């Protein structure tokens, strides 16, 4: 596991310019749009940290170095687990770093910033649980197209539901509002539980996809 994490770390630090651009834009947004910007910037940095994870898939596929990787003492389960752990660490680093910068700049808002950061992180984990199996199944380039198609299909299905079943979206909104009204501790437990469940399902699917792969 440590060897694979090291490999992805080495591949990620190759993207120094990309990371610097993310940080520069994040700093600019924080400076110019503080009011509406904190949540956005945390989301922005976290989501773009996911792009770094995806770039490790590209590197594994480049020159089919994944074949060489799979001759090492690595099985599908270890490879998949490492990718999830690396995504988790990248997302956590992105969230933590941005939150720390915001907290340092505006110490009075630290509580709100931390809550926003936690919400973004949970959403990111849910996002990872969808993106990673797609990447493992289709590869990095086809995976991006597959993800785009999934997002378009998702939006189309929701729009279709809203047209066919009048009041579908307001009903969803009511459910969300009632969930939001729950006690924070209950809500937090439910959200973390949901995120863990999604990750577990996603990990199982990814492992099965990986098991069937031939090189």
């Amino acid at each position, binding site marked *: 596991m440590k060897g694979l994490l090291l490999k992805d770390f080495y591949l990620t630090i190759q993207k120094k310019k990309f990371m610097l651009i993310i940080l520069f834009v994040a700093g600019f947004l924080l400076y110019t749009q503080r009011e509406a910007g904190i949540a956005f910037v945390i989301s922005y940095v976290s989501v773009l940290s996911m792009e770094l994870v995806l770039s490790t898939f590209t590197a594994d596929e*480049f020159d089919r170095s994944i074949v060489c990787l799979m001759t*090492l003492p690595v099985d599908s389960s270890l490879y998949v687990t490492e990718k999830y752990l690396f995504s988790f660490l990248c997302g956590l680093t992105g969230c933590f770093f941005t939150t720390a910068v915001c907290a340092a700049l505006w110490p009075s808002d630290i509580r709100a910033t931390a809550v926003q950061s936690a919400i973004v992180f949970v959403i990111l984990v849910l996002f990872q649980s969808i993106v990673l199996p797609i990447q493992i199944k289709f590869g990095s380039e086809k995976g991006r197209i597959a993800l785009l198609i999934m997002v378009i299909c998702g939006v189309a299905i929701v729009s279709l539901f809203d047209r066919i079943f009048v009041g579908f979206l307001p009903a969803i909104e009511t459910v969300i509002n009632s969930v939001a009204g729950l006690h924070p501790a209950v809500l937090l437990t439910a959200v973390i539980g949901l995120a863990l469940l999604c990750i577990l399902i996603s990990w199982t699917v990814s492992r099965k996809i990986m098991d069937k792969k031939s090189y």
Partner: protein
Amino acid sequence: MLLRLEHVQKTYDTFALDVSMQIEEGKISGLIGANGAGKSTTIKAILGLIQTDSGTIERFGKQGKMISVSEKQKIGTVLSENTFSMMLNVTQIANILNNVYPHFEKEIFLRKCEAYKLPLTQELKEFSTGMKAKLKLLSALCHNASLLLLDEPTVGLDAITRNELLNELRAYMKDDKGILISSHISSDLEGLCDDLYFMKDGKIVLHEDTDLLLSSYGILKVSKEQYRNLDRKYILAEQQDVYSTILLTNERQFYLDNYRDIVVEKSSIDDVMLLLLK
């Protein structure tokens, strides 16, 4: 027994693999075949990189379609077409391997890389084909593997470096270790291997000890008349041209003793390859 394959089969649209072989401790086995004969597919099947349709693979005495992590720890691999990510350098690869293999000898690996003039901090994309080949072989040799699976390990190397690396393989060999090596370069295998598997269209067509192959096998050159009168029970393959027929035998002495008027020559591995695999 380090490795045993029993009718391992894999069928593709235009190719079918059906291979049986075994690699014993203390032996270097060669795998010879033309491009597309199934050498790489065989090695990939052993490593679990492809899913086989049927047959049994026994690694280190354990049978199983899937290869375990502990079994992979005991295997050193060189694949002809694949290497580490081109964005990594030798030092980074050493760190990765050090954390992947429990018995990786990092210092020795780095020392050997320097000895073979491999730059430690240069990305692999800057490496020549020969440099990549050296790196792949050194990576396979430095974690105390019991079994080496080498698919065209010397491809792209000049004669001097090839000889140096073949010497590394000779030095690596001990009683409890084994090597399966595929190569197009028959001279490499002739001086290195204890036994040879000849592969054609996904199947092993001949398995023979190298010494026996070089001492007992022979080439007969016969006219059409001589061909008609020849006892062909020891003939393995033949190739006809306009004026004569060239035959491969595994009993050269039989023809030397009984057919004084025909040309009988010693055969090289190349001769066997040309006649058997054409």
